[in-house]
């Protein structure tokens, strides 16, 4: 089944307390290479049949109006998931 992926990230200027907590935990486990962590959200929208331009446009609108809040978040990606990646 075709899948549209929507990725939403907190805006760069918005403090991301979850990401900060993860960044604090990483070096405690020996992962010292990572300076900063930002935590976002990934949505997978499953589509019955073919993903038309119109359906993709609907996904973009839904991403802007429901899946993200423009005050604190950016939609960084709306794309059809590659089938080979989906079945992997």
């Amino acid at each position, binding site marked *: 089944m075709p899948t549209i992926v929507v990725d939403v990230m907190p805006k760069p*200027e918005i*403090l991301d*307390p*979850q990401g900060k*907590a993860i960044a604090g935990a990483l070096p405690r486990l020996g992962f010292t290479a990572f300076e900063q962590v930002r935590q976002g959200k990934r949505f997978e929208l499953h589509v019955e049949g073919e993903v038309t331009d119109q359906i993709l446009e609907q996904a973009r609108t839904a991403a802007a109006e*429901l899946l993200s*809040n423009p*005050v*604190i978040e950016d939609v960084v990606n709306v794309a059809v998931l590659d089938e080979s990646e989906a079945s992997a």
Partner: protein
Amino acid sequence: MTTEIPLIGDYSTPGTELNGARIGVVTFPGTLDDVDAARAVRLSGATPVSLWHADEDAAGSLKDLDAVVIPGGFSYGDYLRAGAIARFAPMMDAIAAAAGGEAGSTRGLPVLGICNGFQILTESHLLPGSMIKNDHLHFICRDQALAVENNETAWTRDFAPGQRITIPLKNQDGQYVADEPTLDMLEGEGRVVFRYLDVNPNGSRRDIAGITNAAGNVVGLMPHPEHAVEPGFGPDTEHGLRTGLDGLPFFTSVLSTLASGGAA
């Protein structure tokens, strides 16, 4: 909605001009504080009216109401973002229309959003900004001191300007954020209604605990006035344990506003 008789309470008769005011209290799936909010409405001298989020005739249900409270809780489990799904309820469309939309209006329906209700009001774009997780990531529950910085809104006119009050604060996503121009605009227009005192409990920008729309009829705040309205249940004060009643003036304020013929 039934509200039981308080064990301890102020039974003095409210002013006659306040009798008959009907204040709606909205319930969403996951709302927790609707019964407390209804009780606060009753203790202030008005009649609480239960409102359901999915009401098919939401506009009709609001018609003979004088004000609306959107209470706290975890509507839709805070899924997606706090308030993000509740915002699309038919009742919210009706409330937004009755309140006068984003700009508000001096004749608009007074609306008070508490905690999750504040989050729903920001998601609805009735108030600017948004709420993110507390900067320390912990759920917080404490009695919180606030300064009343604007006592000219529909919900604060019974406070003195700059009055220090203490009411409970209890939330996980309580950090108020907005971009700098929005914060400057809020400060410049006197729309910061409440500011945290002594300590910033959640990292909120500029210690902001509550704000209003331009017209002053829509107010949102994170702390809970409805939990400080009757002796025996409020925050501790110098007069004794659980004697704090600083939440009551929120609810009497809107009655004063109505009695004087409109929003502040």
